[in-house]
């Protein structure tokens, strides 16, 4: 049995501490607007959810003191940032870096499941549909943020690239270089 060739990074404690005191309502509003932008540019993502498009998902970055509650709502998604979980259909838990790596196609979901870095609970079909839909969407979250940052896009890209290089967290989509 081998160990991961590149261990999954954990979030800096400072970020976790910051999220303990940060007001979550503005964050929820921003993420909802952001997810709707993604829905507009990647309609296939929500179409691919099929019958699971009305389920509620909890995305739980286990190294942060918050969870994200995603209601796809048939392509008009809503995201809530919560300090505690709420009733849901499916829950996907793992370190933030693993979840971001999945979104960006750097990690394989089954491999993360085998290694126990990713835990699924609740409606397994819904969790699987979301994972497969996201994998097909070829998202690049940093690029989406840069696209709405106007004159700040260029310096923002540089900052993101530096954080990515320093932390080992996949904040952008690595085109042809899967981590494992």
């Amino acid at each position, binding site marked *: 049995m081998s160990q991961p060739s590149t261990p999954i990074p954990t979030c800096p404690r400072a970020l976790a501490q910051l999220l303990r005191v940060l007001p979550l309502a503005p964050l929820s509003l921003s993420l909802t607007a952001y997810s709707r932008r993604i829905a507009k540019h990647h309609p296939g993502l929500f179409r691919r959810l099929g019958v699971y498009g009305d389920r509620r998902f909890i995305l739980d970055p286990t190294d942060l003191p918050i969870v994200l509650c995603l209601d796809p709502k048939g392509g008009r998604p809503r995201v809530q940032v919560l300090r505690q979980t709420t009733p849901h259909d499916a829950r996907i838990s793992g370190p933030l870096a693993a979840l971001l790596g999945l979104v960006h196609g750097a990690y394989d979901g089954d491999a993360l499941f085998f290694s126990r870095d990713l*835990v699924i609970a609740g409606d397994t079909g819904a969790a699987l549909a979301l994972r497969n839909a996201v994998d097909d969407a070829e998202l690049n979250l940093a690029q989406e943020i840069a696209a709405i940052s106007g004159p700040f896009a260029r310096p923002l890209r540089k900052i993101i690239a530096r954080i990515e290089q320093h932390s080992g967290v996949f904040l952008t989509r690595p085109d042809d270089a899967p981590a494992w």
Partner: protein
Amino acid sequence: MVMEIVCPAGTPAALRAAVKAGAHTVYCGFNDETNARNFPGLNFDRSEMRAGIAFAHAHGAKVLVAINTFPRAGEQTLWHRAIADAHHAGADAVILADAGLLAHAARMHPDLRLHLSVQAAAANADIINYYAEVFGVKRVVLPRVLSVPEIAAINAETGVETEVFVFGGLCVMAEGRCSLSSYATGLSPNMNGVCSPASHVDYHDDGGVLDARLGGYTIHRTAKNAPAPYPTLCKGCFSAGEKTGHLFEDPVSLNAEALIPQLLKAGVTALKIEGRQRSKSYVAQVVGNFRAAVDALAEGRPMPKGMLTRLSEGQAMTTGAYRKTWR
């Protein structure tokens, strides 16, 4: 001769990743019960299939469309339409298992190349030659129950191309004849395209111990931090009397990378990678690995050593039946 790498694609993104990583051929299916990987969020609608095939052809790769479940009585139209749509989309071949479907395809689409799915469990030269003579089958995907000498014996007695699995999940049963999933869920890969359907799987974390249930039955409990297997009955860990163990098969993945030279010598045409349910990350990595291996073999260079354990079920690998060491 370079052996053909046949790679899985569960989504259009995975198809593109496979082609970019060097797959000679990609296999995929429609998003319905006609293919044996009918999982949530996976597969291709008709327009995605047309676009995927066009992309592959533009990059010099082929696309095989798997229509490899068994039609239900009175519902054959769904399967017939899938064959017609694959043909019109420009598929290089369809992969079929059902004799009735093969007859339909041979009659209605005489210029469409036919491959025999592993689901047909054709494991000797007589039956393979029969499929070739009656339906014009050009290639057979051999079941994962044969040793390398047995594969060589088959190739010595048939002109039909053979394709063998070299990486990915293992089925312990004669493929196309396993009903284990049906006993627990009422759904099977043969009829519905789903083995251990996700809709019937439940995971429970019990203090770090991962409890996997299928159709309400606990099929294995994975100790804290131990590698987890797929929730299939054939990989289940059962207790009988005082013994607890994997009754049918250990949760491991097939990796026959080291046997590629022997498979070439045995007359195998194509090497198949399992995993249409896997991500584009898996696809790119496994294809890249195997493409490098067959290229090295063709050029007489030493084969590079792979790094695929991380991607394997249970994070452990076996050469399966190719080297038989039954316990």
